[in-house]
Each structure stands twice: as structure tokens, then as C-alpha cells.
């Protein structure tokens, strides 16, 4: 869905900071994350485990519990800052779909019951009206024989159907923004294809904006219009999806793309990233990817990189793209097909 850059974004996250205070340390799970979502578009947030993407999703909905709390930044929804205790005002405008549907559905209530609960809270429907609406929602998400299914319990549905039911629940509040936190990770690939098709259809029909969070680069490529790559609590690159995959600007994105088995010849070794994802225990004082980056130089370890525009509607937080940097003069935008040393450390 093409969108003019002058339009107000539906969701504007600015410098979000979420910190977890445990007995031993302070973890800055989300450390200065900013991104926009406009109406009717699908934005991806991709990162590995420990990157902070799930925490970001939860903080948009105000679901961050102790020992974590939002300690900085704002989450702007239609202009209101949600972090200013505005969650309740916008309940129903944002809905979330979690990863494991068997965890999202209460096993002792029927599917219909749970959808009707959402309908009652957000649309005030009751009784037969609510049942009809629930059946309609199940139909919208593609569950066959909805009149029967509405009376069934979650365990009687397969994984894919359960996830559809969860999406139906999310749609019950007629949201403007649907946050999907790894919605297809627990599903088989053919069912995943169905769910992705469903989400695309729903977006068209209901004019939904979707925030799609996952670690699966392939899904991101197919399902999103724009992508944010998150690493150790920070967004390192933003770009329209196609461009990100053909011309990654940040070394982490490049390395991530290379690690995908499908992109390497079967006879060759898979390229790997040395080192491990750091746990951010304080505000960033340097580039968090520097210890693992094949292109790192001295300044990378001294100052945290700021986002720099690297093209049309895209930016990357990497010193290589800073104007005036020597290394930048040597390489501008990476070519996704370049082969860097493959191989891992023991």
C-alpha cells in the first residue's frame, strides 16, 4: 500500500526505552527504538532472539510487566502518547496476535465464548447478536463450518485453525493496527502460507495496518512493505522490503541474509557471524554489533552510530555510511551477493 510521506503515521514510536531490573543486572531490552507505521501498510520488525522485538511489541500495547518498565521515549498513536497512561483509551484500536495459539486461547472456554468476550467489551454486543458476529468473524478468517466451530473448544481445532481463531478475536475489537508477534513461527509451512494469505486479504478488506514481528527473513520478504532490523535493542536499518533484501546497508543485515541456507550453494559452507548477541546492560556507548562486524574500525568501538539516510526512505545506523568517513568512501551500499569469508569459529 503506497503512502505519502507527508501523512501522519498511525503509530509513531520514538526513542522507546524499556529496561528490566533483575537482581543481578539491568537489561536495556529496548534502547532507543523509533519507527513509524502508516495506515494500511505492513511493517516488519525482524531480529533474532534477545534483540528486543517482542518487548517492543508488548510495550506498544502496554503489556510490559515488572521487572521491566518503559523508562523513556513515547509511543504515539494518532497523536496521543500511549506511554502517558493512555493505554485504556486506545484499547481496541490496537490488537495483538501472539506466537503460540494454544497459549493464547483459554482451554476451558469455547472459541465462540472467547470471541464473544472481546465483542462484548469492545462493541457491546450480547447474546445472539454476539454469536452471529462471532460466526461472521470465524468466516472472515477462513474457518470452514463456522457455526459448528463456534461451539468447539480450542483443543478440537488444529494449530492453524487456532491461530485463525486468535486472529478473529483480535479483529473482534475492530482495530486499526494489528500487531503480530511471530504469528506463524509455531505453524507448519503450508499453514503459514495460508495465514500469510489471510493476513494480506484482511489488510485489504479491513484497511488494517500490520506490525509483523518475526525472525524469519523469508516471511518478512513476502509479507511486508517496509522492514526494520533490530539488534540488541536498537534498530540498525530501515528500508522498503525489496531494497533491504537486494541491497542491505548494514553489516548485520548483510550477515543475516547470508546465513540463510537457501542463499548459499549446497556444496559450500554456510557463512556465519562470529561471536554472540550481547545483552545490553547499559545505554549504548558504542556500536553493539562492532565486536562481530567484519568491517569494524576504531571509531565503531567508541561511539554509538546514529541513523543516516542511505537512499530513498531508508536509513542505517552504521558509521560506514557517515559522510566523510574514509571507509565509507571505499564502500557505499553493500551488494547482497558479495562473498565474505565464510566459516565459523570453534
Amino acid at each position, binding site marked *: 500500500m503506497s503512502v505519502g510521506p507527508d501523512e501522519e503515521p498511525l503509530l509513531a514510536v520514538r526513542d522507546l526505552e524499556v529496561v528490566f531490573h533483575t537482581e543481578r543486572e539491568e537489561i536495556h531490552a529496548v534502547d532507543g527504538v523509533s519507527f513509524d507505521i502508516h495506515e494500511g501498510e505492513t511493517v516488519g520488525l525482524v531480529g*533474532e*532472539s*534477545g534483540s528486543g*522485538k517482542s518487548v517492543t511489541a508488548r510495550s506498544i500495547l502496554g503489556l510490559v510487566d515488572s521487572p521491566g518498565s518503559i523508562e523513556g521515549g513515547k509511543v504515539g498513536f494518532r497523536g496521543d502518547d500511549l506511554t502517558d497512561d493512555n493505554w485504556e483509551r486506545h484499547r481496541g484500536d490496537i490488537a495483538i496476535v501472539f*506466537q503460540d495459539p494454544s*497459549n493464547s486461547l483459554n482451554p476451558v472456554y469455547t472459541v465462540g465464548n472467547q470471541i464473544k468476550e472481546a465483542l462484548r467489551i469492545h462493541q457491546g454486543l450480547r447474546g445472539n447478536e454476539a454469536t452471529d458476529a462471532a460466526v461472521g468473524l470465524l468466516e472472515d478468517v477462513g474457518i470452514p463450518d463456522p457455526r459448528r466451530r463456534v461451539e468447539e473448544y480450542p483443543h478440537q481445532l488444529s494449530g492453524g485453525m487456532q491461530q485463525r481463531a486468535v486472529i478473529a478475536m483480535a479483529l473482534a475489537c475492530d482495530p486499526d493496527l494489528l500487531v503480530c508477534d511471530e504469528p506463524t513461527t509455531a505453524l507448519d509451512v503450508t499453514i503459514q502460507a495460508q495465514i500469510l494469505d489471510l493476513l494480506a486479504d484482511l489488510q485489504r478488506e479491513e484497511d488494517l495496518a500490520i506490525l509483523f514481528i518475526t*525472525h524469519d527473513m523469508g516471511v518478512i520478504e513476502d509479507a511486508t512493505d517496509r522492514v526494520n532490523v533490530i539488534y540488541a535493542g536498537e534498530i540498525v536499518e530501515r528500508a522498503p522490503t525489496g531494497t533491504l533484501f537486494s541491497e542491505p546497508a548494514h553489516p548485520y543485515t548483510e550477515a543475516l541474509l547470508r546465513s540463510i541456507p537457501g542463499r548459499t550453494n549446497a556444496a559450500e559452507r554456510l557463512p556465519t557471524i562470529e561471536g*554472540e*548477541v550481547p545483552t545490553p546492560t547499559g545505554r549504548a556507548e558504542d556500536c553493539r554489533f562492532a565486536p562481530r562486524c567484519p568491517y569494524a574500525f576504531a571509531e565503531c568501538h567508541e561511539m554509538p552510530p546514529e541513523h543516516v539516510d542511505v537512499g530513498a526512505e531508508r536509513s542505517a545506523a552504521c558509521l560506514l555510511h557517515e559522510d566523510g568517513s574514509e571507509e565509507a568512501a571505499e564502500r557505499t551500499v553493500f551488494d547482497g551477493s558479495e562473498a565474505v569469508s565464510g566459516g565459523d569459529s570453534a
Partner: protein
Amino acid sequence: MARAHETTSGTLLPTNSPAAVWAAIGAVLFAAQGGAFFGFVVGVLGDLLTVTPLPGAAFVTAVEAAVEQIPTLLSRDVIPNDGYWNGSRWVGTFLGLPPGLAWGIRAALVYLYAFVFAGWVILGYRLYRREYRTADWTPRDDMVDRFRGHKWGIFGLVVVFMFVVMAVFAPVLGPTTVDENMRNSYSNEITYWDSDAEAVQTTLVGEANLASQSRGDNPERVLPMEYDDFGRFHPFGTLPSGQDLFTFIVSGSRLSLVIGLLSVGLSAGIAASLALVAAYYKGRTDLGLVLASDSVMAMPQLLLLIMLTTVLSGTWLAEIYSGGFVLALIFAGTGWTYMWRSLRGPALQVAERQWIDAAQSFGQRPLTIMRKHMLPYITGYLLIYGSMTLGGAIISIAGLSYLGLGIAPPTPEWGRAINLGQDYVATGSWHISLIPGLLITLVVTGFNALGDGVRDAIDPQSDATTEDGAAGRGGGA
């Protein structure tokens, strides 16, 4: 694999081997009271064996007698509480102090020793953990740390500890002994100051008891912390029979503890084994055991007890601990079902974990799997339910003794003390029922508190993986 240290931070002594110092302290402590420890162990075994038709019973009695000869630091000889008031001063007392105070000092020193000993054990553990253990951190450490901060649990631990000390050091703690005051009261004599005759007189203990009975509001009654007419100090007063209540209580505690431990130990053993077997094999085995345990649970425990006690009375089985052994067996035999039920859930959960599959995949034997891979995960629950059941066992024994069904007289038992004093509750001899009652409440609460503390320390939540599925993905290689 001990690491070498030049300086050990935290130890006050500039020594190269804190372990040696710790061991030396331990040796000293042990030498001081070793006799009492041995006495406890041998005494318990002796009570168990003397009435069984097993050979070696005579051997045990001989050992018991020998053990009593071992000199101990805090014994009746070192800090005696006899002596008398001759109208103007204390004669023949410990350091010229009133006998009551002497007793108090001895009791306090016993408890002081016990706490020092406990401190020594804790010190040893911390030393081991800090200096000598190869692993930097084990899962147990988290549990121990959590327990340390749990006030209610610590309270429970202290109460239980004091109870155990009471049981172990019973012969030393009482102002007199069971033998002298109760069992062979007509074979022992005491000397006392007769204020009328202005001279030291001798009388049989039994006679003295008769003159010190607490029956309601009678003038001879002896209330807690009082001396009787014969110059004897009674910290808890006397019973209606004139016997010393404190001695009665401390020796009864030994019985309660031993029977409690026996029955809970047996119960736990049966329950844990069956739970592991049911969880490992699942299916029909589990179903069969559920049916069996339901059947056992359906049996009325009290009726069974009465029946068995009657049937077995007169046999050697009923002689052990004056019927206490039979009680323990019956409790174990009927009580394992509750623990089994509680353990079955956690055991089934553990059986689903993938490391069990992994062990099976390389051909590990079932018994070893149960022991190594399942048992450590239910010991926590075992401790929790075990400590609570122990409290329950003590109450049950007391209750049964109160009803006259449990421990046969004249063996001391707390419940019986309550029974003995029940007629006098509203009179001047209120202490006879009240004190044992309060003690039972305190001890059982202590056990429950300990169980609470252990349960919170175990905290299975922290064992589980994070609930965020995506975070369950492994990062880093």
C-alpha cells in the same frame, strides 16, 4: 580439586587452609558433646531393639551403658542443679546459685552449644561453596539464597531446630531424669532440707512426688518455675502424679520426633518410589497405582489403628516404643497415599521432559533414569510435603495419646500430658494441659513454616524456560 589460596578473603585467620581450621573447631565441638550424640543414637536404637526378639539386644544395652560413661562437657555432673536452701544460704549448689538458675544455665548452654554447632555447619558450607567447590554456581545456590531471605521459613527452621535439640539432648535438659523421677521413682532417693527439723533428710523420690502433686487448687501443687517442698526445681510444674512435667515433655519430644521421622520417612520412601514408577511407565501402571492408592485412602485410618493396636497388643511389635512403632507403621502404611498424590503431578511433568527421552535414547536403564533424571526434581516437593506431614504426624500421635490409643503409659508423650491435665484446665493447675498444648502448636507451626519456606525457595517457576516462545530460541553458538 581444591584451589590454592594465598590469602583467603573473609577468613580472619591468615591461614592457608581454612578447611583445616574448620575441621579443628569441629573436632573440639564434637569431643565436648560427643557422648550426648552417641547417647541419643544408641538410645533410639536401643529402644527399638530391646523388645524385639532379635539377637544383639543385649549388646545394645551394654553399649548404651558404656556410652553413658563417656564424659561430656554439658552434663548433669558438670552443672548440677541440686543443693538446698538451709534458711540462710544455698548449700551444695552450683557456684552458690539457686538450683533453678543452675538448671537455667545448663539448659541455656546446651542450646548455645547447639546453635554454635549449627553455625559451624553453616560456616563449613559457605567455606566449601566459596573456596573448594569447582562449580561457580549450581541450581541449588539459588534455592539456598532464596530460603535465606524467607523470614517465615527461617522462623520455622529455628523452631524445628530447637525441637530437635530438645529431643537429642533430652537427658541433659531436664532438671531430673525419667529414670529417677518416673520409671524407678521408688528405687531412688533424694536429699532435701527439712525446714522443720533444720536438717538434711532423705526420702524416696516416689514419696516426694506424692507430696508434690498438682491437682487443681490443692496447696501442694507446683506451678511452673517453682520449687516444691523438697527443694526441687520444676520449670514447668508437676503433673497430677507429682512427676516433673518438663522432664516428661523433653523425653516425650524424643518419642514424637522419632516416630514422626520414622513414619514420614517410610511414607516418603514409598510415595516417591511409586510416583516415579507411575510417571515413568505411565499408562496402565499409573492407572493401577491410582486405583490402589484410592483403595488405601478409602480405609478409615482411626479404625484401622484401633484394630491393629488391639490385635497386636501383647506382641513384641507393640512393645517397641510402647506402641509407637506400630503407630509409625500404620501412619506410613495409610499415609503414603497423600504424599504419592502430591508427588505424582510433578513426577509426571518431569517424565515429559526431553532429557528423559535423551537418556532412553542411549540405553540408560529405567531405574537409573528415575534416580538421576527424575528424583532430583521431586525432592523439593518431597521436602515440602514431608515437613508438613511431619507436623501432622506429631499432632496425630498427640491426639491419639490423648485419647489413650497411642503410646501406652507410662511412656511420656505430649498428648497424654494434655489428657492428664484436662480436668484441671480451669483450675489452679492450668499448666498441665496448657504447656504441652502450646508446645505442640508451636512445633507443628514450625514444621509448616519450614515447609512454606522450602516451597518458596524451590519456586518451580524459575526452573522453567521463559514463557516467551520466541525468546526460547537459542541465540549465540
